[in-house]
């Protein structure tokens, strides 16, 4: 599997993402600078986390208008897989590749901790190595992760099975106590209509070995490797 990681001014999870991809897929991803207008040949494009442009104005807003994003959009339309983590998710909503918006956390605070997520379906390239029966544990670290979409959009996402992950309790209940940021429907990640673009607030790349406190992030990259290796 060939992957590319896009780097913007203020990206700060780019190295973590590169390390996780290389370690798990056995292949060094290509790094692409935000001013590029072309993407290298690849099966997976990753928009890493960070505070691009300081998250000034709106999180992800300015990065979403970078030259490279037009190429990412085009690649997504051509069927490549795109993964946006945290700030990358915010960029995907800002470009319109994914619906809705990510607003300030309900209690207005930055929040860094491990959360439990339900895997809503495991028939996508991103989740095929997960079981839907058991919540996974992944860290979040964000200030603007409060997912908002209007009723109609929300109903469409739910109806089309496009919710990827939900914040749940350890036992798997998607209730208010498990919701760290006020997201509607406890949504932590969503898919595009063809299930090839995934945006998520939690950071799978940060929990890929027991020394870091767990390895529930690993199956995402293993699944992608399996699905996208040609």
């Amino acid at each position: 599997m060939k992957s590319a990681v896009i780097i913007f001014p203020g990206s700060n999870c780019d190295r973590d993402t590169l390390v996780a991809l290389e370690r798990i897929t056995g292949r060094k991803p290509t790094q692409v600078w935000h001013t590029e207008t072309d993407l290298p040949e690849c099966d997976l494009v990753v928009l890493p986390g960070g505070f691009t442009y300081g998250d000034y104005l709106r999180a992800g807003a300015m990065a979403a208008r970078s030259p490279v994003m037009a190429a990412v959009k085009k690649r997504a339309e051509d069927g490549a897989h795109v993964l946006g983590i945290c700030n990358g998710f915010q960029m995907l909503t800002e470009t319109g590749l994914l619906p809705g918006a990510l607003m300030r956390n309900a209690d207005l605070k930055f929040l860094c901790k491990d959360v439990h997520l339900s895997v809503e379906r495991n028939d996508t390239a991103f989740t095929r190595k997960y079981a839907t029966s058991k919540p996974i544990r992944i860290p979040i670290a964000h200030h603007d992760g409060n997912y908002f979409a209007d009723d109609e959009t929300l109903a469409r996402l739910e109806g089309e099975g496009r919710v990827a992950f939900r914040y749940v309790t350890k036992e798997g209940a998607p209730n208010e106590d498990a919701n760290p940021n006020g997201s509607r429907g406890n949504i932590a990640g969503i898919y595009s209509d063809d299930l090839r673009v995934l945006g998520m607030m939690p950071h799978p790349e940060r929990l890929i070995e027991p020394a870091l406190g767990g390895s529930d992030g690993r199956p995402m990259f293993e699944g992608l490797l399996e699905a996208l290796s040609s």
Partner: protein
Amino acid sequence: MKARVHVTLKNGVLDPQGKAIEKTLGNLGFSGVGDVRQGKVIELDLEETDAAKAEAAVKDMCEQLLANTVIENYTIELDAA
């Protein structure tokens, strides 16, 4: 020419910042305050001197960057001073 853009959340979009302010005002003992909303105001200095052209340019900036029209509305004021 100066332009002033107000960006506010659309009706029906939850406003966490406004909600938090409302709650805190209550905690501080201010009563009778409801429906607090927080928006942005962006001020720009434009070289353009023609009002119609300036307005069109600022509208473009709003659509392309300053507002997220999925959740936000914007209004533009121009000030020739």
